[in-house]
């Protein structure tokens, strides 16, 4: 029995990712943090669908307990969304580096201030 | 009973405005169109007297944007009187403006006459509104359409004055008047102007007092202190604008709205029984005294007339807040009486400016002999404003005094008399200077004594007409009195 352990793991990962997203000044690290945050939610969904002793939901005479496939299917979609988000974020970072010559947020902020925005 | 004439009265000047715009390259045709529109409008308004005298109230409802909130027009005696004053004086002002603008070589005539016509359309809308919301829409339209007129000269000073004008009127109307309207709707469930009011027994005395204050201070056009500041600022406008808008359309739209709100929304009896108007009553009393004191100290002719207007408008508010028959009758009669008197004075001020480019009172020495018509008209207008017979202004002052007596407000009566004395003190010396002081030496030597050097006929004729109007109003005041009496039993 693992009790609520999976939720604690999810919770820890979530906070970790969120903290990283907010606190790092490096834009790539922000994206990494965002990924950890999203992944924690994926794990949450996957563990939620797990039925103790259950197997993959392929109908067979030998099994009577199946895991709930719905959350797993949902999370496939969410993973695709997550990948797309990461790709777009990285593309934006490339463009930001082209424009500012840096991916450090503090540096970029100074540059914006200099250009008198 | 659907009658499209009130709607026509709004569309007609708008149509005129468009035609003015279309003919901007043909000045004579353009000014001709303005003139024809004014006359047509006046007759259109007069045509409403038939049904109204017969006791009907021609109405025309056009939209209902929110369920239970109809917008439309309804002609009742008070509004008809205001519309007559505005449209009638529009004719003379147009004649005057054509002369004034051409002689002074003011620029942008087309814009001027365009805005002028739109402003009159808005004034007609205010006069004929059947409910507070319609009234509010046209009230704002009046503000916005007169703004370019105030800023007409495009100088820095003109822009500053116009900005103050707009800031005061928009802030008060949105910040206070609209709140009052919504509060009225929230308590009474209707905004229709209903004889006897819609708020009887619906609000506590405190609530009603607050509402009355919101209305009276929210209607910034009535220039009750401390929201009177826009009026002197707006005097940067060309004189015909000051004449029509700040003696007739704009300020009278303000006090007219207050009277209308008292009669048809708050209810005269309701106001009288609760005493909810006391704060405004005393503010008006203060305003009319204090504005007269300021007027005494102004040397600029138009500034003095502006503060005189502030004081005279307070008479109307005071009469309305007395909430008795005589007071309201006086207040209502003060609207046409003061309009005709004050427009005469403004015409004279403009006439002096056109002929001599003088703006200060101290420069007017001896001008009376050069410009006898102008100064004679100024004298007649002054006497009417002061309220002495045989001028129209005497009647409204008389009924106002009766009103204070009926309400047993002896202090107010004293203040009214004191204010009349001050009127004498700040108006008649102007005439005195013109006739009894000698011309300054250098000017006297320029022309032989006795030469008449008036402003153009297009200026002199209108001011003579309005001066004659002051006398006529004295003689035929009973017609107005009988026309309005059924409203204030």
């Amino acid at each position, binding site marked *: 029995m693992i009790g609520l352990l999976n939720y604690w793991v999810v919770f820890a990962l979530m906070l970790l990712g*969120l903290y990283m*997203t907010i606190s790092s000044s490096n*834009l790539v690290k*922000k994206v990494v943090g*965002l990924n950890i*945050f*999203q992944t924690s*939610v994926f794990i*949450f*969904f996957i563990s*939620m669908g797990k039925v103790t002793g259950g197997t993959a939901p392929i109908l067979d005479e030998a099994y009577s307990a199946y895991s709930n496939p*719905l*959350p797993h299917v*949902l999370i496939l*979609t*969410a993973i695709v*969304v997550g990948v*797309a*988000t990461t790709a*777009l*974020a990285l593309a*934006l*970072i490339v*463009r*930001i580096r082209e*424009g*500012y010559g840096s991916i450090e947020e503090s540096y*970029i902020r100074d540059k*914006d201030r200099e250009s008198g*925005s | 009973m659907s009658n499209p004439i009130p709607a026509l009265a709004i569309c007609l000047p708008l149509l005129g405005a468009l035609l003015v715009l279309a003919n901007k390259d043909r000045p004579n045709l353009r000014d001709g169109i303005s003139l024809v529109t004014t006359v047509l409008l006046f007759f259109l308004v007069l045509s409403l007297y038939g049904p109204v005298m017969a006791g009907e109230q021609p109405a025309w409802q056009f*939209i209902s*944007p*929110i*369920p239970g909130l109809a917008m439309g027009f309804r002609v009742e005696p008070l509004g008809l009187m205001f519309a007559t004053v505005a449209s009638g004086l529009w004719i003379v002002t147009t004649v005057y403006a054509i002369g004034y603008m051409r002689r002074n070589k003011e620029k942008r005539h087309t814009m001027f006459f365009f805005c002028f016509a739109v402003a009159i359309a808005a004034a007609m809308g205010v006069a004929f509104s059947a409910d507070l*919301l319609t009234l*509010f*829409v046209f009230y*704002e339209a009046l503000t916005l359409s007169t703004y370019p007129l105030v*800023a007409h000269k495009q100088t820095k000073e003109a*822009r500053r004055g116009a*900005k103050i004008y*707009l800031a005061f009127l*928009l*802030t008060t109307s*949105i*910040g206070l008047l*609209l*709140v009052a309207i*919504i*509060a009225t*709707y*929230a308590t009474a469930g209707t905004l229709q102007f209903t004889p006897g009011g819609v708020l009887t027994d619906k609000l506590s005395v405190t609530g009603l007092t607050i509402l009355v204050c919101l209305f009276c201070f929210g209607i910034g056009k009535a220039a009750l202190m401390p929201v009177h500041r826009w009026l002197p600022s707006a005097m940067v406008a060309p004189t015909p604008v000051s004449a029509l808008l700040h003696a007739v359309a704009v300020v009278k739209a303000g006090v007219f709205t207050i009277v209308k709100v008292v009669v048809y929304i708050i209810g005269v009896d309701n106001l009288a029984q609760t005493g909810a108007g006391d704060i405004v009553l005393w503010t008006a009393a203060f305003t009319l005294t204090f504005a007269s004191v300021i007027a005494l100290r102004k040397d600029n002719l138009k500034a003095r007339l502006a503060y005189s207007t502030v004081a005279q408008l307070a008479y109307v508010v005071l009469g309305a807040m007395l909430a008795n028959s005589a007071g309201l009758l006086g207040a209502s009669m003060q609207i046409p009486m003061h309009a005709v008197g004050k427009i005469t004075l403004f015409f004279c001020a403009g006439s002096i400016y056109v002929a001599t480019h003088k703006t200060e009172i101290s420069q007017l020495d001896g001008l009376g002999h050069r410009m006898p018509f102008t100064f004679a008209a100024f004298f007649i207008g002054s006497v009417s404003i002061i309220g002495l017979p045989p001028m129209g202004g005497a009647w409204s002052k008389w009924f106002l005094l009766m009103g204070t007596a009926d309400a047993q407000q002896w202090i107010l009566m004293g203040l009214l008399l004191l204010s009349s004395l001050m009127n004498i003190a700040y108006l008649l010396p102007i005439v005195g200077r013109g006739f009894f002081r000698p011309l300054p030496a250098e000017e006297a030597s320029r022309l032989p004594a006795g030469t008449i050097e008036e402003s153009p006929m297009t200026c002199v004729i209108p001011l003579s007409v309005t001066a004659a109007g002051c006398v006529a109003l004295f003689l035929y005041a009973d017609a107005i009195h009988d026309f309005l009496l059924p409203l204030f039993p």
Partner: protein
Amino acid sequence: MSAQLPILQLLFPLIAAPICSLLHNRNAAWLLSALATWASLATAIGLYYQTANGAELIYEVGGWPPPWGISVNIDSLNALVLLLITGMASVLVVAFPASLTIQWLGSRARLYYTAYLLCFASLIGITITGDAFNVFVFLEISSLSTYALVAMGRDRRAQLAAFRYLIMGTVGATFILISVGLLYMATGTLNMADLAERIPALHDSTVVRAAFGFFIVGAGVKVAMFPMHFWLPSAYSFAPSIASAFLAATATKVAVYVMLRFIFGVFGAELFFDVLALDQVFLALAVVGIVVGSLAALYQDDIKAVLAYSSVAQLSYMVLGIAVGTASGLTAAVVHIFNHGLIKAALFIVLAGIFVRFQCTRLSDLAGLGKFAPWTVGAFGVGAMSLIGIPGTAGFISKWYLLLSVLEHAWWFVALVIIASSLLALAYMWRVIDALWLKEPSQLVTERGREAPLRMLIPAWVLALANFFFGIDTTVTLGAAGRAVASLLGVSA
């Protein structure tokens, strides 16, 4: 055919989008997007009339009955929102080519159209779906395409704004995902109608309460509810102006719709008002948002930033309407969704037209433009009047209802805040009008001052006149809002 209407409007842009990305001819790409948009509008109008009697249309996607399959539900509320999205898009799409003639955007026209179509399709998707998880998916599609649209701005700050929006937006969307997961845990369904039936029994469940909390925060980011509004001003300011017009008119409005739908159609008004008393939180946040947004708008030099901060305040009006929770309050919120979309579309499209001419929208550079471009500035003036809430314009209707609803509760303080913010709106719009009309023309304006391109000016005036139309004839807006509110309150009762 008419039975397929609910899904058709989504399919038009969704199918057009990938084709569009292959069309190298700019005009062909535009034509395809325009046709798809107009087809959606025609469908939305059809749906509006089908729901005009208060009926609810339920369409089973792929023939799978809910709760197994995904259902598409159209009632009066989302019919109105659909009308807004498709209507605004249909008008704005006319102006796209003219605004994309600017060089750095011109070469990317087809990508712009693709992103626009995806965003448009997903906004429709969010609005029509009856499935909670589906909301998340479409929300993410719309967000991703929005980030791309914002990043197409010329300034390098556009990319930074897009990135910051992406971070906040993704966190917000993930919060919604968590909420959906928790809801599924507690109830075992994702169908909104089913959820609404099962949740009342679970009011004491911590899981449901947590789900509600996560949802509010996540949706709050999308709505730009104070204090989660930081992405909005920079995103709207640096995005291509015409994209700002589209986003301001539709994206945040759809987010407000999602909030309304979940609060009343999923979690239930009882949980929101009585059990958790979240209306107090909403009320406080809305009041602060109104004040902060209006004040910030007063101090911006870029006109787009003025409008963006004003959006923060105006969106708070809708949140306030939700917090009031009575019939008139919700009517105010629903009508304001529509009217504010109309106002902001009109204002932003004018700015886009100005931008095409001057490549900037700074107030100090555009002084005196009114003398050279009276029609352009005139359309802006009409939009400004509606934003302030002058009677006779659309903005007045929503403000009227909002004030009435607040007065019904006798919340005098809140009423004062609304009035004060109207005055602030007057002040910040007046600043703009004053500079555009009355100041002496700046050097830039004297050199290059002329009207916006006709293809932008006409849509701008169509929208401006629509502001008058919907301020005078309110049968469509108030009618739909009234029915929508009745069904929202009916569901929760």
